[in-house]
């Protein structure tokens, strides 16, 4: 019976993947990530139209925190922030540029010229001016701010051919600080509240009745419990839960893009069976691609003692990868894994105080773009998926495949 369920899960996954068959590549370098997801060409997750909802309940895999906004660090934040915050222009799942805070954009010599929407407003009703955009960038992305100038209150010039790509990044979102140090004040049609330890984060429309409110609630340890509850959406990277979702006709599984690649930084290149590592972890993973990158800096501190593979405490995927590296003998006999607190782990990553260290990196960052004291070998890429009640379909897929829950269909 269980075998039957697994087979059905696999078939369901294949079927769902087939819904998103798409040949177009996504934005950004992905040297270490596996083959990009194949999203639907029209960036719409199709399905029979369901009834309109007044509210949507999302069970998240990690808390949606105001401390992170507007740059997502989990699948739930990727979905939530894509709804609540805007950039000058945005892209859909295929990378096609769509209007955002800016209503028009055009080449301007060696850069790009963005014209702000006249009706662009912050959540508090204040108009969005070019100075506000530059202030937000200076606070969050100084390199982008250095490339940008205001040409009047409604026009921004950004130098560089890649300006159109850069302004679509989440770090380029147009925000201003909240007086209560809570959620940054954005410009979208939805705003976000809650998110504290005793209140769920809620994304709701700035205009009453315009769209359903979306509540992001923490689930139990096992994401399968959420699937069996009355959740409308479950965001998870748990492979068992996704397989289980595949067995439930009520749900459709929408994978997000490969967001994170686990890299082993070691003194030497490590020959490792990446497929074996994928089998060792419990999350939705795929073998990373690309060769190891050589060191471009020297170690600040040479470790002594036994060979240890260090990972950040509380990262079960890194723990499983490290355990498999040890268990398979890929890093030699006598080596063992060690969990480090965040401060120690950060020091190990930056200064090389451990023999080797496992580092999760954004998938879009090529390994050579990061300075390391050792060989950085990409191991596996992981991603979260959004399991949605089919009654919410169809859905538009935003950048990275994040579904725009509650948007007009």
């Amino acid at each position: 019976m269980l075998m039957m369920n697994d087979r059905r899960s696999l078939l369901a996954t294949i079927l769902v993947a087939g819904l998103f068959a798409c040949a177009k590549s996504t934005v950004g370098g992905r040297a270490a990530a596996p083959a990009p997801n194949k999203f639907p060409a029209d960036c719409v997750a199709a399905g029979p139209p369901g009834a309109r909802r007044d509210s949507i309940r999302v069970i998240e895999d990690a808390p949606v925190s105001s401390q992170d906004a507007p740059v997502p660090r989990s699948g739930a934040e990727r979905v939530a922030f894509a709804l609540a915050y805007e950039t000058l222009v945005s892209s859909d799942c295929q990378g096609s540029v769509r209007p955002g805070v800016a209503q028009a954009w055009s080449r301007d010599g060696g850069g790009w010229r963005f014209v702000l929407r006249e009706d662009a407003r912050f959540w508090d009703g204040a108009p969005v001016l070019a100075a506000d955009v530059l202030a937000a960038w200076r606070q969050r992305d100084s390199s982008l701010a250095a490339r940008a100038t205001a040409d009047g209150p409604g026009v921004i010039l950004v130098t560089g051919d890649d300006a159109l790509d850069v302004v679509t990044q989440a770090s380029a979102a147009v925000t201003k600080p909240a007086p209560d140090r809570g959620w940054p004040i954005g410009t979208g049609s939805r705003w976000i509240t809650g998110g504290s330890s005793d209140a769920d984060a809620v994304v709701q429309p700035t205009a009453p009745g315009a769209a359903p409110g979306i509540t992001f609630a923490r689930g139990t340890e096992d994401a399968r419990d959420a699937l069996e509850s009355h959740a409308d959406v479950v965001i998870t990277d748990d492979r068992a839960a996704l397989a289980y979702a595949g067995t439930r006709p009520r749900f459709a599984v929408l994978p997000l893009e490969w967001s994170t690649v686990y890299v082993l930084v070691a003194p030497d290149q490590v020959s490792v069976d990446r497929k074996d590592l994928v089998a060792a972890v419990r999350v939705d993973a795929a073998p990373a691609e690309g060769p190891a990158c050589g060191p471009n800096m020297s170690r600040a501190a040479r470790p002594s003692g036994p060979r240890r593979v260090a990972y950040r405490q509380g990262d079960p995927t890194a723990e499983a990868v490290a355990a498999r590296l040890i268990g398979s003998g890929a890093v030699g006999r006598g080596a063992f894994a060690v969990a480090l607190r965040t401060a120690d782990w950060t020091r190990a990553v930056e200064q090389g105080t451990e023999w080797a260290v496992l580092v999760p990196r954004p998938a879009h960052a090529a390994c050579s773009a990061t300075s390391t004291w050792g060989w950085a070998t990409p191991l596996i890429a992981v991603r979260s998926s959004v399991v949605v009640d089919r009654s919410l379909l169809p859905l538009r897929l935003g950048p990275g495949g994040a579904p725009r829950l509650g948007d007009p269909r």
Partner: protein
Amino acid sequence: MTFRARLASAFLPAVLIPLVVFGWGVRRAVGTRLGALFERRADAALVHLRARVAGASADLARRLAAVRRAAAGDLRLRAALAGDSDAGYVRDFAGTAMRVSGLASLQLLAPDGAVLSSGHFRNSYGWVEPRLASHLRAAPDSIALIRVRSAEMPFVTLARLDSLRVGDRSYALIGGIGVDSEWLARSAPDQDVTVTIDGDSTAAGARALTLPFLASEDADATGRATLVVGQSLAPQEAIERSVDRWMVLGLLTAALTGLALALWLAGRLSRPLADLTARAASLDLERLDTAFETDRQDEVGRLSKVLGVMTTRLREGAEVARRAERRAALGDLARQVNHDIRNGLTPIRNVFRHWRDVAGAQPTELATVFAERQGTVESSIAYLDALASEYARLAVPAPAEPCDLNAALQGAATRLSGDDGVTVRLDLAEPAPLVRADPLALRRVIDNLAANARESLVDGHGTVTLRSERGERVCLQVIDTGVGMSPAELERALAGFHSTKPRGSGLGLTIVRRLVGDAGGALRVDTAPGRGSSFTVEFPGLEGPGHAETREKGGGDGR
């Protein structure tokens, strides 16, 4: 070394040695009793450890049997094992079963030793441990200490073997409980006993329990491991240190007390002796009135009485000696008086003999001769008169005054000139030297020396030379051509009561030496038998502005 020091040095060993022997005996007895107690406790601890291992083995057997039954009833697991499929489920089986059964390690091994599922190290699947099952199977009671691999540090378990049969294949099921510091601590009956792995089993009070051992991460590390029951010797050492401390404290107290007692006792004993010593030290011939009376009946009392008797005897003897000395002094004085009177009478006798001879042979010349020699008689009479005054004053010396030495020598030469066979020669220094002396004493010196010189002449014939000399000191010399003296005779003559002359008193040189000494001068004698004698008297000269005046005043004695 004083009596007190001797007593103190003897007292200390007498106190300390018995105490040291006592303390050593107590320490030895305590050590022996504690050692026996520790040995018994070690035996009891080993029994406790054996029971704990046996209990753990039985508990492991029950838990593994439960896991085996659960595995046998898990159809998905059976299907996966039988069909070599559903590897993910198999991999997670041991983890779930390990947590449910409360084991620290659980492994499911294929018949070839490959790890199919590991509860404590999920991702060690595929690792082959071919000897693990056979090693445990060969171990007594199928139990052994296993150092198992984990993703992090390897750890030691007390492991047991069971087996799961699926179809015609048998899978090893190996479960263990962690032999960590907590388990080892609980294996000790009390806190003073410790249980360690491969500790020092040769230490005092240690016992060992040997078990089969296998290191799963190292195929070569197979053998036996020892659980060592040890116990801290700290309590025994603390007791021994306490005994040592108290013994040292007792020794110090006894030493100080003994020293104080010895000093007090020595003081009590030596104080009477010191008192006797002080009183005895104050004794001399002039003071023999020290009292030694005591009421003590001990040795000190007897010594005091003996000293008292001795003092009485000494006092009586001193009185006898004093009387004898007084008699001898009177005799000496009488002889000295006799001698001095003779010296004064001799010129008078010579003058009267001269006058008698002149009155018989040349009566007409008598008046002339009388006039010539009248001075000599008067001088001798004056001398005797002064001598009498001198003796009347006895030891009261006359005041010194400048005297003309040449005049004194000329007077003596005149007094000598009455003897026919004596040739008197004067050899006087000019100007006349002055000496500070009693004039009478100066005449006695010169007359004694001149009389000795005259009397030493052989048959009364010879030459007597009287000389004066001045230099750094003023000297007078009386030189004769007489018989001379040997060194022994000279020594006796200076000592007194010895004379080479038939009628001599033997006091002349003694008197001379005393008088010269009183005047601050010195007497030198050059003599030898048959070669005559030369007596030299050195006086301190007179210097200063009053020299000429005093010389004129001193000339009156030259008659």
